[in-house]
């Protein structure tokens, strides 16, 4: 087994430091929002994790398409890595969002387009892993996984648009705000620092985890190959 690359070790340390700094910026440095108060601080990590979740989701669909074209195991490993990380980060996003929504919207959950789409995306990911679980042949598993990420990647945006045909109450902090949104606000200087730093931090953490997961995926593929060699 090859040792862990130095660059990865460095990236691990950087990720931890960045996460610590981002936490400080979000909880202490950023000014308290006037209307919502302390609970608004959830926002920085909420958007950061959501961004990373979305990134993984897009990456998975792209990797799925490339796998079907090239038939290279590498892309299958990338796909699984993105789906797995994205699954965890979307879950964190949903939980942070609920913590924020309880005082601001006066409910843990509402069937808003973003919330519903996030929940359905989680279900698609879980279904994806159940599908993979049920297939022993690695080649077929990779093909089916790729097909399913493509279907999910196309269906999730349509779900989003279709629920958007109803009204939405989710605030849009960056870009145009809809009249019905509740709990919106505009960011001041200190908030912007904390916000963009959180986005940057989670991107770095994503890359770090992604790297780890790809290493793990490659090793798992190797183990599977060795097992097959022994059995034959």
């Amino acid at each position, binding site marked *: 087994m090859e040792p862990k690359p130095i660059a990865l070790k460095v990236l691990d340390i950087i990720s931890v430091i960045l996460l610590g700094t981002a936490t400080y910026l979000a909880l202490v440095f950023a000014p308290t929002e006037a209307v919502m108060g302390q609970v608004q601080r959830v926002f920085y990590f909420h958007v950061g994790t959501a961004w990373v979740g979305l990134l993984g989701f897009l990456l998975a669909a792209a990797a799925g398409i490339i796998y079907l074209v090239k038939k290279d195991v590498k892309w299958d490993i990338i796909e699984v890595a993105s789906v797995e990380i994205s699954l965890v980060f979307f879950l964190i996003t949903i939980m942070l969002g609920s913590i924020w929504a309880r005082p601001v919207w006066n409910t843990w959950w509402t069937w808003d387009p973003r919330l519903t789409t996030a929940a359905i995306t989680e279900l698609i990911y879980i279904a994806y892993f159940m599908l993979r*679980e049920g297939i022993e042949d690695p080649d077929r598993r990779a093909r089916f996984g790729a*097909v399913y990420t493509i279907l999910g990647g196309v269906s999730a945006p*349509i779900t989003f648009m279709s629920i958007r045909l109803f009204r939405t109450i989710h605030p849009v902090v960056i870009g145009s705000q809809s009249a019905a949104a509740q709990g919106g606000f505009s960011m001041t200087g200190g908030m912007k620092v904390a916000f963009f730093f959180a986005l940057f931090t989670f991107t770095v953490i994503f890359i770090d985890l992604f790297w780890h997961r790809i290493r793990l995926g490659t090793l798992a593929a190797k183990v599977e190959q060795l097992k097959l060699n022994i059995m034959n």
Partner: protein
Amino acid sequence: MNDRPLTINQTLSIVRRPSPNFLKATFAVVWKDLAAEFRSRELFSAMLVFSLLVILIFNFALELDIKTRQSVTSGVLWVTFAFAGTLGLNRSMSVEKDRGCLDGLLLAPVDRAAIYFGKVISNLVFMLIVEAIVLPVYSFLYNINLFQPGLLLVVLLGSIGYVTVGTLLASMAVQTRTRDVLLPILLFPVAVPVLIASVKASGGFLTSADFASEIMPWINLLIVYDVIFTAIAFMVFDYVVEE
């Protein structure tokens, strides 16, 4: 083989040849499924009895009095169709897999997309027959008129979308260890847009909502979904049945 360059007519005949074959192959698969079903009636009777039972259960679960009926009818209908559809999709693919028929179909020298579309059409026919019986029964039991041309169009568009994705996923699900259990889990999250749009559009027709603003967007969405997913399924089906 001749090495001479082909004349325009010859080229045209080569280019055009696959299309009648494609249609012929598609309808051969449809015909095979319908003939087998006509003789056994296994799938159809299961889907029909199941749908009627679901409606019966909803009757007790929701207390379908006149007021609630207005608002929940479209939901009850689409849940029934979705469940019965899953049953049919599972069955139609597992009979192929069980007796090794799928391998036989794949060995046939036809475009594999033709097999896929044949399966889609036969599944659609089963689903439409079940719906053609459930709708009048529901109308009769709950004294509500479901026979509006617009509503029937929604039923058709929704079923097409559901069956298109469902057939693709069913052919994946039968090749896994968990098989039948897996299909609804794979299908429902991906088919959410169809169900939302169908429920909303049918509900709009039943409450006679404004057509242009309340119903049309959902019908557009159904058409878009049908087109996109037919195209995707057409492109990826080869990878699903590849050995």
